[in-house]
């Protein structure tokens, strides 16, 4: 503001001061209002958070997946909400799928096992139940999350996402609703809702639209609640990317959860048609039938691809846009199974009506199992798989993976991915259960068959082959031929280096290390000595290309004999005798042990392990080579390169002692196994809690904890 120049200086000063006060005064006045608003908003968030937070759980899952012809254990983290006083937790199917062990972490940090009640891959919803008997206080009352009305959500409403992003449990983010009816068909040219898959051959998202929001979610948030500012659950977070999150609407999720608790599945009616919206078709009403499945209910009723369905049981329907498709599909799916539904249609200039007797919608993706002794995984053939793979029937078991080097892969001809096993030893196999029963019968460890005749269907071609099952045995690696060795490490001293050291003629090998505990250490050899001859034969490296000359020369001598080394120690020449000992074994020669129960591979420690780690001779143990992260040992905190020095009460002197300790431990089956490991210079006490249910060869249904 410009103060007119003609106003006197005093007046200008007063005037400026008033303005200044006014300017200072205004923000102070405005800040108080804003602060109150902020504080009020903060209180709303606190209160709404506190209504759901106590019911939030972090879910750790150990799952068994199938890949490469074998079972693979994995570990994952997701989120869930306690939705009943009995301890039912609502989460996503993809969090718990193939789970064999579930652990929920409650608001008071208690970790409690849970079991799967049911899952619905079509909606990516699942329910697990906390084992109350394992709580510190089995009579405790669970905090239960309450559902709000997700239909009342509007774009712009504030929402919170709660869960365990990146396994960081009990996290909250805040955002707004961006869209209340998001679908993924029609985006990027994908027109078919069947293409949206949860996993291979498993559709999802057919019956719901998604609440899109921008409360930040990340892997680990899956299954966690989307909460409004009233502290009510309005969605279950299931998808995300960038700054977008997608939640399954709470009303729908609540209904699915109720059904899963009651029936452990969600039965739905099946019509055997796929539909498409009439946008861009020229039609004004109805919904277009894209295809009719052969022998499906609609096919039997006489419906044809290209028909325009105009009413369902007399009620007019129109699906113009992709956003409307899930609503109709859900309506159709909710008809009673086996009931009759009238569909009016237009076919060109004609109109008609069919009565469809619905059937039960079968699951898309069949159960899968590993057959370890044969080296393959097989899957139940569902209707969908039969269609997708162009199989002629559901009989048999689909081969979903073959392990490299396994009896199935080395058979002549081999069994391949996509083959359908139809018989074993001339006994027909119609279902996965039949194959499991046949496998169990034939593959008894003490009486493995020499060979098995396997009949397969390979894309319409009948093939037979012979597989030779074998026990999974671990052989010790072969040893190198023993050679003579001096326990030193050397570097070549070439001419220019020798010159720098004082005499260009003194080329040879300078000792850079004398390994402790060796015969060399017991001799008079010292770091800095330059070896110029072995048994009177000069060894003079011409350059780095001769860096191995001394070692090669020594290796040609005889173990146990003495070698005479001519060395220069400063300016003094000395002749030193050293006893030749055997070359020390390398890590690839070390004996190994693989423990299938603990899913842990170890090997004996070598001389070089000791030297690298500066372990003295009284440090003993076995070195962890590999540990399955989701196995007992991995979950107990054992890591590769740990040195296991004690197992329970057993000191581990060497590999044999370790094998004995593990055998005795398996016999005793304690609730907890303590392994003491050396990790670098530090000791760690790792507590392993085995469930003592070893993974069987065929890895059948998920073990309930």
């Amino acid at each position, binding site marked *: 503001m410009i103060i007119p120049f003609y106003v006197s200086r005093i007046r200008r000063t007063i005037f400026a001061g008033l303005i200044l006060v006014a300017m200072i005064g205004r923000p102070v006045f405005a800040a108080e209002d804003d602060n109150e608003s902020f504080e009020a908003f903060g209180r709303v968030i606190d209160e709404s958070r506190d209504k759901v937070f106590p019911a939030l759980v972090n879910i750790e899952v150990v799952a068994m997946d199938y890949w490469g012809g074998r079972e*693979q254990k994995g570990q994952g983290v997701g989120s869930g909400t306690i939705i009943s006083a009995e301890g039912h937790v609502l989460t996503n199917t993809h969090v718990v799928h193939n789970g064999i062990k579930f652990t929920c972490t409650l608001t008071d940090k208690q970790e409690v096992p849970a079991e799967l009640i049911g899952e619905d891959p079509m909606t990516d919803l699942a329910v697990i139940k906390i084992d109350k008997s394992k709580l510190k206080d089995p009579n405790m009352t669970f905090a239960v999350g309450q559902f709000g009305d997700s239909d009342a959500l509007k774009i712009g409403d504030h929402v919170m996402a709660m869960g365990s992003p990146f396994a960081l449990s009990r996290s909250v983010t805040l955002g707004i609703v961006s869209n209340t009816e998001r679908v993924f068909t029609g985006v990027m040219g994908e027109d078919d809702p069947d293409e949206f898959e949860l996993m291979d051959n498993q559709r999802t998202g057919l019956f719901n639209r998604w609440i899109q929001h921008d409360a930040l979610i990340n892997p680990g948030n899956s299954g966690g609640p989307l909460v409004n500012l009233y502290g009510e659950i309005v969605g279950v977070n299931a998808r995300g990317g960038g700054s977008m999150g997608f939640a399954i609407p709470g009303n729908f999720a609540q209904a699915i959860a109720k059904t899963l608790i009651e029936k452990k599945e969600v039965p739905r009616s099946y019509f055997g048609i796929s539909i498409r919206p009439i946008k861009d078709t020229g039609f004004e009403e109805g919904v277009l039938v894209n295809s009719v499945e052969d022998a499906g209910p609609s096919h039997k009723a006489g419906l044809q691809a290209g028909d325009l369905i105009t009413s369902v049981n007399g009620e007019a329907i129109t699906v113009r846009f992709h956003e409307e498709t899930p609503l109709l599909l859900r309506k159709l799916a909710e008809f009673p199974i086996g009931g009759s539904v009238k569909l009016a249609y237009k076919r060109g200039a004609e109109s008609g009506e069919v009565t469809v007797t619905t059937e039960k919608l079968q699951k898309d993706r069949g159960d899968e199992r590993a057959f370890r002794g044969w080296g393959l995984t097989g899957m139940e053939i569902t209707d969908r798989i039969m269609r997708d793979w162009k199989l002629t029937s559901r009989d048999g078991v689909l081969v979903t993976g073959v392990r*490299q080097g396994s009896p199935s892969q080395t058979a002549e001809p081999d069994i391949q991915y996509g083959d359908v096993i139809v018989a074993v030893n001339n006994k027909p196999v119609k279902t996965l259960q039949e194959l499991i029963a046949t496998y169990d019968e034939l593959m008894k460890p003490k009486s493995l068959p020499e060979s098995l005749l396997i009949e397969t269907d390979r894309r319409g071609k009948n093939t037979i082959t012979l597989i030779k099952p074998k026990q999974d045995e671990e052989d010790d690696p072969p040893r*190198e031929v023993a050679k003579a060795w001096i326990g030193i490490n050397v570097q070549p001293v070439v001419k220019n280096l020798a010159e720098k050291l004082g005499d260009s003629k003194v080329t040879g090998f300078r000792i850079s290390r004398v390994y402790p505990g060796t015969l060399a250490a017991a001799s008079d050899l010292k770091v800095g000595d330059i070896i110029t001859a072995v048994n009177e034969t000069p060894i003079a490296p011409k350059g780095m290309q001769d*860096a*191995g000359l001394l070692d*090669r020369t020594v290796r040609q001598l005889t173990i146990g004999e003495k070698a005479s080394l001519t060395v220069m120690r400063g300016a003094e020449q000395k002749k030193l005798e050293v006893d030749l000992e055997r070359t020390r074994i390398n890590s690839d020669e070390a004996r190994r042990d693989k423990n299938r129960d603990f899913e842990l591979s170890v090997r004996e420690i070598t001389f070089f392990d000791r030297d690298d780690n500066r372990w003295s001779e009284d440090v003993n143990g076995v070195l962890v080579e590999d540990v399955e992260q989701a196995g007992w040992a991995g979950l107990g905190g054992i890591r590769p390169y740990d040195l296991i020095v004690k197992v329970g009460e057993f000191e581990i002197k060497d590999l044999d002692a370790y094998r004995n300790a593990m055998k005795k431990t398996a016999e005793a089956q304690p609730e907890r196994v303590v392994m003491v490991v050396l990790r670098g210079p530090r000791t760690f006490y790792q507590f392993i809690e085995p469930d003592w249910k070893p993974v069987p060869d065929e890895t059948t249904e998920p073990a309930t904890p």
Partner: protein
Amino acid sequence: MKSIRLRAMTLAVMAMFCAVTTLRAGDGEAIRKIVEAKAPALVTVKFMLKMNFPGSDGQESEVETAGLVISEDGLVLCGNAMLGGIVGIMNKMMGGDGGQDISMVPSDIKVLIGDDTEGVEAKLLARDSDLDLAWVKIKDIGDKKLAFVDITKGVTPQLGDSLLILKRKSKFFDRTPSFIQMRAAGVTSKPRNLILLEGDTGSAGAPVFTPEGEFAGFTIFQVPDSGEGDMSPMSRFTMTDVMFPVVLPLAEVDKATKNATAAP
């Protein structure tokens, strides 16, 4: 004059042709005799190779490699690298215990003799990464006496000598015995006594004979010890040299075999 010159030239060409034809016929016959004589001792060693490295849960594959029977009771000489010894070679190049938590363990070893496709059970007796040799022993040969090559008798090739390297082809070619003919292109004593060949024989692990059928050595790979190889990206000398098999002369083969079979 012109016609005499032309006639002379024609006669010279014909003489050359006959000489070449005669030389070829003689070579072919000699080679056939050697291959036929040695073929019974050429075997295929079939095995499962399990590779263990962190996170692998053991990857397995079925492998076949060439072998040479060197005793009538079933001692078979093979190339170590071909029998999973590549880890030992890597350790050598990297020095001491190369820090590789990798192991390759052959198992279910079988020796296929002649037309046999099933094989007889065998075990890996020893391996020598320095010399790239491995020894496999047939477990139970019964009363049978196998055709073998006596590695204690033979000659050491000289520079320029012609050599025949024999091995069986893969099962795709019915494991038929075949040969490669090469000359000794170099003789060295570093890193040890070796005969260098004028070209690439493909894989190592094959016996080498003179055109007279005498045993001369065995093809192996030789790699620098730690610190010896010039690994700079612009230098190709060392890496080009070590890419091809060389011949370990019979005296070295014999000495190594005695060491290997005597070792506890």
